[in-house]
Protein backbone atom coordinates (compact mmCIF):
# COMPACT_ATOMS: atom_id res chain seq x y z
CA UNK A 1 0.00 0.00 0.00
CA UNK A 2 1.19 3.51 -0.55
CA UNK A 3 2.65 4.95 2.62
CA UNK A 4 0.20 7.52 3.94
CA UNK A 5 0.63 8.85 7.44
CA UNK A 6 -2.09 11.47 7.21
CA UNK A 7 -4.91 11.10 9.70
CA UNK A 8 -8.25 12.85 9.69
CA UNK A 9 -8.92 13.66 13.32
CA UNK A 10 -7.26 14.37 16.63
CA UNK A 11 -8.80 11.13 17.92
CA UNK A 12 -6.98 9.18 15.25
CA UNK A 13 -3.84 11.24 15.84
CA UNK A 14 -3.74 10.31 19.54
CA UNK A 15 -5.09 6.79 19.32
CA UNK A 16 -3.35 4.41 21.69
CA UNK A 17 -1.79 7.03 23.94
CA UNK A 18 -1.93 5.70 27.48
CA UNK A 19 -2.02 7.12 30.97
CA UNK A 20 1.50 7.48 32.32
CA UNK A 21 2.94 8.46 28.94
CA UNK A 22 5.99 10.65 28.58
CA UNK A 23 4.94 13.38 26.17
CA UNK A 24 7.43 15.56 24.30
CA UNK A 25 5.96 18.93 23.27
CA UNK A 26 7.91 21.15 20.89
CA UNK A 27 7.77 24.92 20.71
CA UNK A 28 9.79 27.95 21.74
CA UNK A 29 8.97 31.59 22.03
CA UNK A 30 5.57 31.33 20.40
CA UNK A 31 6.73 29.25 17.43
CA UNK A 32 6.13 25.55 16.97
CA UNK A 33 3.58 24.71 19.64
CA UNK A 34 1.31 21.80 18.58
CA UNK A 35 -1.60 23.40 20.35
CA UNK A 36 -4.39 21.55 18.53
CA UNK A 37 -2.92 18.22 19.59
CA UNK A 38 -2.10 19.41 23.10
CA UNK A 39 -5.68 20.54 23.63
CA UNK A 40 -6.95 17.24 22.22
CA UNK A 41 -4.72 15.40 24.66
CA UNK A 42 -6.22 17.41 27.50
CA UNK A 43 -9.76 16.75 26.31
CA UNK A 44 -8.91 13.08 26.02
CA UNK A 45 -8.08 13.19 29.74
CA UNK A 46 -4.96 11.06 29.48
CA UNK A 47 -3.37 11.41 32.89
CA UNK A 48 -0.29 10.83 34.97
CA UNK A 49 1.77 12.34 32.17
CA UNK A 50 5.42 13.27 32.19
CA UNK A 51 5.57 16.49 30.21
CA UNK A 52 8.83 17.21 28.42
CA UNK A 53 8.68 20.78 27.19
CA UNK A 54 11.27 23.53 27.15
CA UNK A 55 9.02 25.78 29.22
CA UNK A 56 6.42 24.62 31.71
CA UNK A 57 4.71 27.97 31.62
CA UNK A 58 4.99 29.62 28.21
CA UNK A 59 1.88 31.71 27.66
CA UNK A 60 1.47 30.67 24.05
CA UNK A 61 1.72 26.93 24.69
CA UNK A 62 -1.36 25.02 25.77
CA UNK A 63 0.80 22.70 27.83
CA UNK A 64 -0.37 24.84 30.75
CA UNK A 65 -3.86 23.42 30.17
CA UNK A 66 -2.53 19.91 30.73
CA UNK A 67 -0.98 21.11 33.98
CA UNK A 68 -4.07 23.01 35.12
CA UNK A 69 -6.24 19.98 34.38
CA UNK A 70 -4.13 17.93 36.77
CA UNK A 71 -3.01 15.52 34.08
CA UNK A 72 0.73 16.03 34.59
CA UNK A 73 2.68 14.35 37.38
CA UNK A 74 6.16 15.42 36.30
CA UNK A 75 7.71 18.15 34.18
CA UNK A 76 11.11 18.07 32.50
CA UNK A 77 12.06 21.53 31.19
CA UNK A 78 14.60 24.33 31.22
CA UNK A 79 12.19 27.04 32.37
CA UNK A 80 9.36 26.80 34.85
CA UNK A 81 8.84 30.34 36.03
CA UNK A 82 5.43 31.90 35.59
CA UNK A 83 5.33 35.31 33.94
CA UNK A 84 3.13 37.01 36.50
CA UNK A 85 4.40 38.07 39.95
CA UNK A 86 1.90 35.66 41.50
CA UNK A 87 2.17 31.92 41.23
CA UNK A 88 1.20 30.11 38.03
CA UNK A 89 -0.86 26.93 38.05
CA UNK A 90 2.36 25.00 37.71
CA UNK A 91 4.00 26.88 40.57
CA UNK A 92 1.00 26.29 42.85
CA UNK A 93 1.13 22.54 42.21
CA UNK A 94 4.90 22.51 42.62
CA UNK A 95 4.72 24.41 45.91
CA UNK A 96 2.26 21.84 47.19
CA UNK A 97 4.44 18.94 46.10
CA UNK A 98 1.82 17.77 43.62
CA UNK A 99 4.07 17.89 40.60
CA UNK A 100 7.61 16.69 40.16
CA UNK A 101 10.11 18.95 38.42
CA UNK A 102 13.37 18.26 36.64
CA UNK A 103 15.20 21.31 35.30
CA UNK A 104 18.00 21.02 32.76
CA UNK A 105 20.09 23.64 30.98
CA UNK A 106 18.33 24.24 27.67
CA UNK A 107 21.22 22.87 25.64
CA UNK A 108 21.33 19.75 27.78
CA UNK A 109 17.56 19.42 27.43
CA UNK A 110 17.90 19.55 23.63
CA UNK A 111 20.88 17.21 23.58
CA UNK A 112 19.17 14.64 25.82
CA UNK A 113 16.37 14.49 23.27
CA UNK A 114 18.78 14.30 20.36
CA UNK A 115 20.59 11.49 22.20
CA UNK A 116 17.32 9.69 22.84
CA UNK A 117 16.61 9.63 19.14
CA UNK A 118 20.18 8.84 18.16
CA UNK A 119 20.74 5.72 20.28
CA UNK A 120 23.16 7.48 22.64
CA UNK A 121 22.21 6.48 26.19
CA UNK A 122 24.42 9.08 27.86
CA UNK A 123 26.93 11.81 27.10
CA UNK A 124 29.14 14.28 28.90
CA UNK A 125 28.54 18.03 28.73
CA UNK A 126 30.27 21.05 30.27
CA UNK A 127 26.94 22.83 30.78
CA UNK A 128 25.70 22.89 34.35
CA UNK A 129 28.99 21.75 35.88
CA UNK A 130 29.52 23.39 39.23
CA UNK A 131 25.86 24.34 39.60
CA UNK A 132 23.04 22.90 41.65
CA UNK A 133 21.59 21.38 38.48
CA UNK A 134 24.52 18.97 38.49
CA UNK A 135 23.94 17.94 42.10
CA UNK A 136 24.08 14.17 42.39
CA UNK A 137 25.18 13.73 38.80
CA UNK A 138 28.37 11.98 37.80
CA UNK A 139 31.21 14.36 37.01
CA UNK A 140 34.25 13.45 34.99
CA UNK A 141 37.34 15.22 33.77
CA UNK A 142 38.40 15.08 30.12
CA UNK A 143 41.51 17.06 29.30
CA UNK A 144 41.56 20.12 31.52
CA UNK A 145 37.83 20.46 32.02
CA UNK A 146 35.07 18.93 34.11
CA UNK A 147 31.91 17.55 32.56
CA UNK A 148 28.55 16.26 33.75
CA UNK A 149 27.09 12.94 32.62
CA UNK A 150 23.58 13.36 31.25
CA UNK A 151 21.25 10.61 30.06
CA UNK A 152 18.96 10.42 27.06
CA UNK A 153 15.28 11.33 27.12
CA UNK A 154 12.90 9.07 25.23
CA UNK A 155 9.21 9.80 24.94
CA UNK A 156 6.17 7.64 24.37
CA UNK A 157 4.64 10.44 22.34
CA UNK A 158 5.98 13.55 20.60
CA UNK A 159 3.64 16.35 19.57
CA UNK A 160 5.37 18.48 16.99
CA UNK A 161 4.19 21.48 15.01
CA UNK A 162 5.42 21.91 11.44
CA UNK A 163 4.34 23.80 8.37
CA UNK A 164 4.00 21.18 5.63
CA UNK A 165 3.90 17.39 5.74
CA UNK A 166 3.61 14.89 2.93
CA UNK A 167 2.07 11.44 2.98
CA UNK A 168 5.45 9.91 3.89
CA UNK A 169 5.50 12.00 7.06
CA UNK A 170 8.29 14.26 5.87
CA UNK A 171 8.13 17.66 7.53
CA UNK A 172 9.24 21.17 6.72
CA UNK A 173 9.06 24.14 9.06
CA UNK A 174 8.56 27.87 8.75
CA UNK A 175 11.42 29.98 10.08
CA UNK A 176 12.11 29.28 13.76
CA UNK A 177 9.19 26.89 14.09
CA UNK A 178 11.49 23.87 14.21
CA UNK A 179 13.27 24.49 17.54
CA UNK A 180 12.82 21.27 19.58
CA UNK A 181 10.61 19.56 16.99
CA UNK A 182 13.27 17.70 15.00
CA UNK A 183 14.97 16.28 18.08
CA UNK A 184 11.66 15.36 19.71
CA UNK A 185 10.40 13.67 16.53
CA UNK A 186 13.37 11.32 16.67
CA UNK A 187 13.08 10.65 20.40
CA UNK A 188 9.53 9.32 20.72
CA UNK A 189 7.99 5.93 20.09
CA UNK A 190 5.00 7.67 18.50
CA UNK A 191 5.52 10.99 16.76
CA UNK A 192 2.51 13.01 15.69
CA UNK A 193 2.89 16.23 13.74
CA UNK A 194 0.26 18.91 13.39
CA UNK A 195 0.79 20.90 10.24
CA UNK A 196 -0.71 23.66 8.21
CA UNK A 197 -0.87 21.48 5.10
CA UNK A 198 -0.62 17.71 4.70
CA UNK A 199 -0.17 16.94 1.04
CA UNK A 200 -0.07 13.82 -1.11
CA UNK A 201 2.80 15.11 -3.24
CA UNK A 202 6.26 14.71 -1.80
CA UNK A 203 8.02 17.68 -0.26
CA UNK A 204 11.04 18.30 -2.52
CA UNK A 205 13.97 16.35 -1.00
CA UNK A 206 16.08 19.44 -0.29
CA UNK A 207 13.21 21.01 1.67
CA UNK A 208 12.61 18.08 4.02
CA UNK A 209 13.77 19.01 7.52
CA UNK A 210 12.52 15.94 9.40
CA UNK A 211 12.46 12.63 7.57
CA UNK A 212 9.16 10.79 7.56
CA UNK A 213 11.04 7.83 9.00
CA UNK A 214 10.65 9.59 12.35
CA UNK A 215 7.00 10.59 11.95
CA UNK A 216 4.08 8.24 12.49
CA UNK A 217 1.04 10.43 11.95
CA UNK A 218 0.35 13.87 10.54
CA UNK A 219 -2.77 15.95 11.04
CA UNK A 220 -3.57 19.00 8.95
CA UNK A 221 -4.99 21.76 11.12
CA UNK A 222 -4.65 24.71 8.77
CA UNK A 223 -3.44 28.23 9.45
Amino acid sequence: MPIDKRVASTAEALEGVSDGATVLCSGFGGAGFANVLIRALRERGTRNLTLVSNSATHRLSLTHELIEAGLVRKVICSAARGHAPGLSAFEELWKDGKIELVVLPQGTFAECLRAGGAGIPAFYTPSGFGTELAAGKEVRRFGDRDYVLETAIIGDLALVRADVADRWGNLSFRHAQANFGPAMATAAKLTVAEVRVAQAEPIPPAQVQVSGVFVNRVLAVGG
Partner: protein
Amino acid sequence: MQPLNRLQMAWRAAQDIEDGMVVNLGLGMPVACGDYVRPGLEVVIQSENGVIGAGPLADKAHADTDLVDAGSRRITLAPGASIIDSAASFAMIRGGHVDATILGAFEVAANGDLANWDMRIPNKGPLVGGAMDLAACAKSVWVIMEFNTRKGGPRLLNRCTLPLTAPNCVRRIFTDVAVVDVTAEGFVVREIVAGLSREELQARSGAPLHFASDCRALAAPEIALPDA
Protein backbone atom coordinates in the same frame (compact mmCIF):
# COMPACT_ATOMS: atom_id res chain seq x y z
CA MET B 1 28.41 61.63 39.05
CA GLN B 2 26.10 60.43 36.26
CA PRO B 3 25.77 56.68 36.03
CA LEU B 4 24.99 55.16 32.63
CA ASN B 5 21.39 54.27 31.99
CA ARG B 6 20.47 50.80 30.77
CA LEU B 7 20.73 51.62 27.09
CA GLN B 8 24.04 53.39 27.62
CA MET B 9 25.32 50.28 29.37
CA ALA B 10 24.25 48.24 26.34
CA TRP B 11 25.95 50.79 24.10
CA ARG B 12 29.19 50.52 26.07
CA ALA B 13 29.19 46.72 25.91
CA ALA B 14 28.47 46.86 22.18
CA GLN B 15 31.63 48.92 21.60
CA ASP B 16 33.67 45.84 22.49
CA ILE B 17 32.01 43.71 19.84
CA GLU B 18 34.58 43.21 17.11
CA ASP B 19 34.20 42.86 13.39
CA GLY B 20 32.98 39.46 12.24
CA MET B 21 32.15 38.17 15.71
CA VAL B 22 29.44 35.62 16.40
CA VAL B 23 27.59 37.05 19.39
CA ASN B 24 24.75 35.79 21.53
CA LEU B 25 22.75 38.43 23.37
CA GLY B 26 20.79 37.56 26.49
CA LEU B 27 17.37 38.85 27.48
CA GLY B 28 16.99 42.38 28.80
CA MET B 29 19.84 44.85 28.46
CA PRO B 30 22.11 42.58 26.41
CA VAL B 31 19.69 42.24 23.52
CA ALA B 32 19.80 46.03 23.09
CA CYS B 33 23.53 45.75 22.25
CA GLY B 34 22.46 44.71 18.77
CA ASP B 35 21.41 48.29 18.09
CA TYR B 36 24.80 49.76 19.00
CA VAL B 37 27.33 47.63 17.17
CA ARG B 38 29.92 50.06 15.78
CA PRO B 39 29.12 51.36 12.29
CA GLY B 40 30.82 49.49 9.48
CA LEU B 41 31.15 46.24 11.37
CA GLU B 42 29.31 43.10 10.34
CA VAL B 43 28.57 40.64 13.09
CA VAL B 44 26.43 37.51 13.38
CA ILE B 45 23.83 37.58 16.13
CA GLN B 46 23.17 34.02 17.33
CA SER B 47 19.85 33.42 19.01
CA GLU B 48 19.75 30.11 20.87
CA ASN B 49 16.40 29.09 19.41
CA GLY B 50 18.32 28.56 16.19
CA VAL B 51 18.32 31.89 14.39
CA ILE B 52 21.87 32.41 13.14
CA GLY B 53 21.99 35.99 11.95
CA ALA B 54 19.15 37.72 13.75
CA GLY B 55 18.26 41.11 12.30
CA PRO B 56 16.37 44.04 13.81
CA LEU B 57 12.90 43.71 15.30
CA ALA B 58 10.17 43.27 12.72
CA ASP B 59 7.79 46.13 12.13
CA LYS B 60 4.11 45.40 12.64
CA ALA B 61 3.49 44.63 8.99
CA HIS B 62 6.22 41.97 8.92
CA ALA B 63 5.96 40.53 12.42
CA ASP B 64 5.66 36.76 12.23
CA THR B 65 5.06 34.49 15.21
CA ASP B 66 7.27 31.87 13.59
CA LEU B 67 10.25 34.20 13.34
CA VAL B 68 11.22 34.96 16.91
CA ASP B 69 14.41 35.21 18.92
CA ALA B 70 15.28 33.68 22.26
CA GLY B 71 13.27 36.42 23.95
CA SER B 72 10.10 35.61 21.96
CA ARG B 73 10.53 38.93 20.14
CA ARG B 74 9.41 39.02 16.53
CA ILE B 75 12.51 39.71 14.51
CA THR B 76 13.83 39.85 10.98
CA LEU B 77 16.73 37.97 9.46
CA ALA B 78 20.00 39.68 8.60
CA PRO B 79 21.55 39.02 5.18
CA GLY B 80 23.43 35.71 5.32
CA ALA B 81 21.18 34.33 8.03
CA SER B 82 20.02 30.76 8.44
CA ILE B 83 17.90 28.86 10.92
CA ILE B 84 18.74 25.59 12.65
CA ASP B 85 16.94 23.55 15.26
CA SER B 86 17.56 23.88 19.01
CA ALA B 87 19.75 20.79 19.32
CA ALA B 88 21.98 22.10 16.53
CA SER B 89 21.96 25.61 17.98
CA PHE B 90 23.18 24.42 21.34
CA ALA B 91 25.69 22.15 19.64
CA MET B 92 27.03 25.38 18.12
CA ILE B 93 27.07 27.10 21.51
CA ARG B 94 28.48 24.17 23.46
CA GLY B 95 31.10 23.53 20.81
CA GLY B 96 32.62 26.94 21.39
CA HIS B 97 31.53 28.49 18.11
CA VAL B 98 30.02 31.59 19.73
CA ASP B 99 32.71 34.22 20.18
CA ALA B 100 30.99 36.20 22.88
CA THR B 101 27.82 36.04 24.89
CA ILE B 102 26.54 39.08 26.69
CA LEU B 103 24.36 38.15 29.64
CA GLY B 104 22.47 39.87 32.38
CA ALA B 105 23.46 38.89 35.91
CA PHE B 106 22.61 39.21 39.58
CA GLU B 107 26.10 38.57 40.92
CA VAL B 108 29.64 37.97 39.68
CA ALA B 109 32.45 36.70 41.90
CA ALA B 110 36.09 37.70 41.74
CA ASN B 111 36.96 34.27 40.31
CA GLY B 112 34.47 34.75 37.47
CA ASP B 113 31.60 32.76 38.96
CA LEU B 114 28.28 33.92 37.52
CA ALA B 115 24.84 33.89 39.15
CA ASN B 116 22.09 35.00 36.82
CA TRP B 117 19.19 32.54 36.90
CA ASP B 118 17.72 32.28 40.37
CA MET B 119 16.96 35.08 42.80
CA ARG B 120 15.38 32.66 45.22
CA ILE B 121 11.92 34.13 45.07
CA PRO B 122 9.80 31.79 47.18
CA ASN B 123 7.83 29.27 45.13
CA LYS B 124 8.59 30.90 41.78
CA GLY B 125 9.77 28.21 39.42
CA PRO B 126 13.35 28.07 38.20
CA LEU B 127 14.25 29.78 34.92
CA VAL B 128 17.51 28.42 33.58
CA GLY B 129 16.94 28.52 29.84
CA GLY B 130 20.13 28.61 27.84
CA ALA B 131 22.19 30.65 30.28
CA MET B 132 24.20 27.74 31.67
CA ASP B 133 25.21 26.53 28.23
CA LEU B 134 26.16 30.03 27.11
CA ALA B 135 28.06 30.86 30.29
CA ALA B 136 29.97 27.57 30.25
CA CYS B 137 30.75 27.43 26.55
CA ALA B 138 30.95 30.80 24.79
CA LYS B 139 34.54 31.85 24.10
CA SER B 140 34.00 35.09 26.00
CA VAL B 141 31.33 35.74 28.62
CA TRP B 142 30.49 39.36 29.22
CA VAL B 143 27.98 40.62 31.75
CA ILE B 144 25.85 43.74 31.80
CA MET B 145 24.43 44.65 35.19
CA GLU B 146 24.15 47.56 37.56
CA PHE B 147 27.13 47.78 39.88
CA ASN B 148 24.82 47.57 42.88
CA THR B 149 21.45 46.08 43.73
CA ARG B 150 18.41 48.32 44.02
CA LYS B 151 18.95 48.32 47.75
CA GLY B 152 22.56 49.41 47.29
CA GLY B 153 24.12 46.04 48.03
CA PRO B 154 27.11 44.75 46.08
CA ARG B 155 26.87 42.53 43.02
CA LEU B 156 30.64 42.13 42.66
CA LEU B 157 31.49 39.66 45.38
CA ASN B 158 34.21 37.41 46.70
CA ARG B 159 31.75 34.56 46.38
CA CYS B 160 28.31 34.50 44.86
CA THR B 161 25.46 34.11 47.34
CA LEU B 162 22.94 33.03 44.72
CA PRO B 163 23.00 29.71 42.82
CA LEU B 164 25.65 29.64 40.11
CA THR B 165 25.04 29.66 36.40
CA ALA B 166 28.60 28.55 35.74
CA PRO B 167 31.88 28.79 37.62
CA ASN B 168 34.88 30.81 36.43
CA CYS B 169 33.34 32.07 33.26
CA VAL B 170 32.94 35.86 33.28
CA ARG B 171 35.65 37.87 31.53
CA ARG B 172 34.24 41.40 31.58
CA ILE B 173 31.46 43.27 33.39
CA PHE B 174 29.76 46.36 32.00
CA THR B 175 28.03 48.31 34.76
CA ASP B 176 26.47 51.72 35.15
CA VAL B 177 29.55 53.15 36.87
CA ALA B 178 32.50 51.00 35.79
CA VAL B 179 33.81 48.44 33.34
CA VAL B 180 35.53 45.66 35.23
CA ASP B 181 37.61 42.75 33.97
CA VAL B 182 37.79 39.45 35.79
CA THR B 183 41.41 38.32 35.87
CA ALA B 184 43.53 35.76 37.66
CA GLU B 185 44.18 38.51 40.23
CA GLY B 186 40.48 39.26 40.66
CA PHE B 187 38.52 42.33 39.60
CA VAL B 188 40.40 44.93 37.58
CA VAL B 189 38.62 48.21 36.86
CA ARG B 190 39.23 49.36 33.29
CA GLU B 191 36.86 52.32 33.23
CA ILE B 192 35.18 54.35 35.93
CA VAL B 193 32.51 56.99 35.52
CA ALA B 194 33.58 60.61 36.00
CA GLY B 195 32.88 62.02 39.44
CA LEU B 196 33.16 58.70 41.25
CA SER B 197 36.38 58.12 43.16
CA ARG B 198 38.20 54.80 43.26
CA GLU B 199 37.54 54.70 46.99
CA GLU B 200 33.81 55.24 46.52
CA LEU B 201 33.68 52.49 43.92
CA GLN B 202 35.59 50.14 46.24
CA ALA B 203 33.17 50.99 49.04
CA ARG B 204 30.28 49.88 46.81
CA SER B 205 32.00 46.60 45.88
CA GLY B 206 31.79 43.33 47.78
CA ALA B 207 35.28 42.27 46.70
CA PRO B 208 38.64 43.98 46.31
CA LEU B 209 39.05 46.05 43.16
CA HIS B 210 42.31 46.55 41.34
CA PHE B 211 42.62 49.45 38.95
CA ALA B 212 44.25 49.11 35.57
CA SER B 213 47.28 51.29 35.04
CA ASP B 214 45.46 52.80 32.06
CA CYS B 215 42.10 53.05 33.81
CA ARG B 216 39.97 55.48 31.85
CA ALA B 217 36.73 57.38 32.15
CA LEU B 218 33.56 55.43 31.42
CA ALA B 219 31.52 57.50 29.02
CA ALA B 220 28.65 56.96 26.63
CA PRO B 221 26.65 59.21 24.34
CA GLU B 222 23.25 60.47 25.47
CA ILE B 223 20.65 57.76 24.85
CA ALA B 224 17.15 58.33 26.16
CA LEU B 225 15.31 55.39 27.66
CA PRO B 226 12.11 54.72 25.70
CA ASP B 227 9.91 55.35 28.74
CA ALA B 228 11.93 58.38 29.92
